């Protein structure tokens, strides 16, 4: 085969593949978009059925609620912060083949560690206080993730079940520890953290405000976004990410390739745990006046990470956007209370969106077959060049 011919084939291959790549990203986007549209539509129908006269106004509030003023916009980022992180936790673990349903437990353990440091370690000067608090949270969450990781790697315990167990154990442990160490008995919740332990506002409280009241948004949203980018780089650009994903796709093959698959499973859970825990820390150090309640209820933020991850297609960058989107809907739902609707309609909408995002495969298939029809010509050309290649080879031998 002449060099020229070779080049043509290679070029063809490359062009063809770049198109496919294009179609892939595009179709993922379109299928998510369609799910969102269907979800909103169902939400609108629910509103219409339950109270036709107010449906339009209520629905507009859902869609526009996050934009009514700067404060509400700030609230979107504030609520997005923890769910972006639990979403990253779930999404990251998913990429490595593990379904981390234990984000809830990791989240609350992280929150406890951060608040503990925030309340007790007042000797830490300046910004080091909140930084240490965040680190402490990540270490605690990492350990909480490590246990299911170890059990899976060495004892083959299903991660889903061990994570469910760890959620409850985490909740009770935190309840126990809060009452024993940092309890405000007047409010039945954890004590206030020291001012140094609060995340800096970075002037955002001045930007995101309406009238006299400013939003709770703070540096946490940037930390969340940075975390997303870091996870993206780890997964897509590094050797470690290559190994993690290989383990996720095929553990046996990873082992065959000399990858320490046990270590990778554990590391993956450690990172997932640290991410969730960081989410917990960011929420409770936000300075919004929130304390850890001593309540026998699993932290909802952990479970909310699942739809966020799914909506973001497990892609870290996608998760940043889906987290903001879900928060945006929630702020819209809060504002919708000016109409006579129950805010649960937001959860109905989100669940419908999630449900239809599960149809991505089919929607993608449709888009692909469209794309394929358009590219038929290119494909044919490619096939021909392959045939030429074959006969040439045969001739030489």
């Amino acid at each position: 085969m002449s060099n020229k011919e070779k080049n043509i084939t290679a070029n063809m291959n490359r062009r063809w593949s770049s198109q496919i790549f294009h179609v892939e990203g595009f179709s993922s986007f379109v299928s998510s978009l369609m799910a969102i549209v269907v979800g909103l539509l169902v939400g609108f129908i629910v509103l219409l059925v339950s109270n036709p006269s107010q449906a339009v106004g209520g629905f507009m509030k859902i869609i526009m609620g996050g934009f009514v003023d700067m404060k509400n916009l700030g609230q979107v980022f504030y609520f997005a912060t923890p769910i972006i992180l639990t979403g990253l936790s779930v999404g990251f673990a998913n990429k490595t083949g593990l379904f981390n349903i234990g984000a809830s437990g990791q989240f609350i353990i992280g929150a406890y560690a951060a608040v503990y440091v925030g309340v007790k370690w007042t000797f830490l000067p300046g910004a080091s206080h909140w930084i240490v608090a965040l680190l402490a949270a990540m270490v605690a969450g990492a350990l909480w993730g490590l246990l299911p990781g170890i059990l899976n790697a060495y004892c083959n315990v299903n991660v889903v079940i061990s994570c469910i167990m760890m959620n409850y154990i985490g909740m009770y442990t935190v309840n126990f520890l809060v009452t024993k160490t940092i309890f405000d008995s007047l409010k039945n919740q954890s004590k206030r953290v020291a001012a140094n332990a609060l995340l800096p506002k970075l002037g955002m409280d001045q930007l995101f405000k309406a009238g006299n009241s400013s939003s709770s948004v703070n540096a946490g949203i940037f930390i969340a976004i940075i975390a997303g980018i870091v996870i993206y780089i780890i997964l897509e650009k590094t050797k470690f990410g290559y190994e993690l994903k290989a383990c996720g796709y095929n553990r046996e093959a990873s082992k065959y390739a000399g990858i320490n698959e046990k270590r990778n499973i554990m590391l993956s859970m450690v990172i997932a745990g640290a991410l969730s825990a960081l989410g917990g820390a960011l929420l409770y150090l936000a300075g919004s006046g929130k304390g850890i309640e001593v309540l026998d209820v699993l932290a909802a933020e952990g479970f909310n990470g699942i739809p966020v991850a799914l909506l973001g297609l497990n892609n870290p960058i996608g998760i940043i956007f889906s987290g903001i989107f879900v928060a945006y809907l929630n702020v819209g739902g809060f504002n919708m209370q000016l109409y006579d609707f129950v805010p649960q309609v937001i959860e109905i909408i989100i669940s419908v969106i999630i449900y239809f995002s599960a149809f991505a495969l089919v929607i993608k298939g449709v888009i692909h077959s469209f794309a394929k029809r358009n590219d038929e010509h290119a494909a044919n050309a490619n096939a021909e060049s392959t045939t030429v290649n074959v006969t040439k080879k045969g001739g030489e031998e």
Partner: protein
Amino acid sequence: METLYFLVQQTMFFSIPLLIVALGGMFSERSGVVNIALEGIMIMGAFTSILFINIFQAKIPGQPILLIAILIAALTGIIISLAHAYAAINMKADQVISGTAINMFAPAFAIYVARMIRTVQQIPFVNEFRIESVPVLGNIPVIGDLFFKNTYITTYIGFAILVVSWIVLYKTKFGLRLRSCGEHPQAADSVGINVYKMRYVGVMISGALAGVGGLVFVIPTSTNFNATVSGYGFLALAVLIFGQWKPSRILMAAFFFGLMKTIASAYSGIPFLASLGIPNDIYKMIPYIATLIVLAFTSKNSMAPKASGIPYDKGSR
């Protein structure tokens, strides 16, 4: 002895719903579909059936209305599970996704509807269903006290479901075919079994049982329904895995969980345990820690249905 009777009776309230729902999950997974939506389906089943009881309680006497409510719960469960089945089977969706969606949808829907039609979200009911002592059987010494006093008809329905499940799974043509779909759908297809249909049936059975489980869970333990089943759907999933997808082992797992839960809640009424002075939170953790430990020793040889969770595509091989 009294304490023992009490423990056993109380354990039933935890174990029976876990048993029923886990058996439901078993049918779904044995057909090849992971049903993480059990929690949501329980909520929906409990919601409609308790709403029904709430509305008709004045007109229909105790046990009959309970039986009708059970049918309504089952029907609701089936309807909800169809959404899961459609996504998992026809759309070949990731089964965790549609399950998560249903888990999110169910409580939101229950609260939304309850509030929209009755302004409050709790739906109260009067518990007229308790059986003081089963006639004749309740008088048997020991056994009567253990199993036939302070009980509910649902307890026996739970055991009946267990027996029927075992027979259906292992002794009937349907069971054989169902299991083959969960293990090797291509093989089932090649001998003319309609895999899609079998999976639909498997998911629908799980829906029916989860719906019933939701009702059975709420009846003995509260006087109203507040759009939650306290995570028992997820626990049932754990019971299913713990029980290695086998009816007999699921029974044991359900009772293990139930007993642990009972002890954790009731220790203060049991003199021996109360005297130990162990904090409540520790007791509450015990069932979960114990489960982890047991799993650590038993998980090496998992018997999960091989094709469970993998969408079946007729075209692929």
